[in-house]
């Protein structure tokens, strides 16, 4: 939605991601680390968690979601969607020592193909996309009217709901 500015500068003609390009970006991200460091200072959450294992080489650990997101250019949400489609965990940390195996790469390649099939059909006008509206987490409105504690709980619930969804989604996967 409109939480961020729409990045019109990365507007481009649709091209299918080639398997070789994808394989290359998923395996050889050591080079990219240098470029990405300046571009992505906002990846604080990844850095915070990965901080403990960082050593003297200063190599930052990137999550699978970051790497695939950079490789495809469809944005983080679609990157996560594709990874989940492949049955992998988006928050998996990858580094020089811990790369994806061939089977996992194949799964990702398949998932990207599935998505790009869908996207191509939409772009060519062969298919009209469905629409989905996601609801906010329901607030239990029954017992909040009288107690002051109730109101506090509801506010906390509101703030925590997006975090809970993350946890729930993770739970579903395991």
């Amino acid at each position, binding site marked *: 939605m409109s939480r961020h500015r729409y990045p019109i500068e990365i507007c481009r003609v649709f091209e299918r991601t080639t398997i070789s390009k994808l394989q290359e970006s998923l395996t050889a991200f050591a080079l990219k680390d240098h470029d990405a460091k300046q571009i992505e200072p906002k990846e604080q959450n990844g850095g915070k968690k990965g901080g403990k294992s960082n050593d003297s080489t200063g190599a930052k650990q990137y999550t699978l979601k970051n790497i695939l997101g950079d490789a495809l250019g469809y944005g983080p949400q679609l990157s996560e969607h594709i990874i*989940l489609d492949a049955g992998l965990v988006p928050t998996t940390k990858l580094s020089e020592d811990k790369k994806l195996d061939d089977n996992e790469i194949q799964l990702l390649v398949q998932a990207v193909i599935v998505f790009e099939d869908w996207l191509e059909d939409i772009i060519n006008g062969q298919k009209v996309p469905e629409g989905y509206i996601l609801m906010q987490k329901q607030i239990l409105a029954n017992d909040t009217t009288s107690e002051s504690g109730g109101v506090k709980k509801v506010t906390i619930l509101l703030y925590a709901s997006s975090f809970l969804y993350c946890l729930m989604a993770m739970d579903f996967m395991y």
Partner: protein
Amino acid sequence: MNFRLPGCLQMYDEFCSILLNQFKSRVYEKFETFDAALDEFYSKIESQRSEQQQKAKEDSASVKLNKIRQDQVCGIY
């Protein structure tokens, strides 16, 4: 006084044209076309937001009222 309309509980959050895997566990409404979903979303979101704000105001007012009431009752005895 009682503000519990059924529509008041369901508040739209966002829309998308493909149901992302990470959203599958959430409550969602499906539409035949993306256009229909957008129409629905933007025709209701404003009123939902104002309803929610109104409700928040009412809740905080009734909390204040209850607090004052309690204080006064304590003062009497």
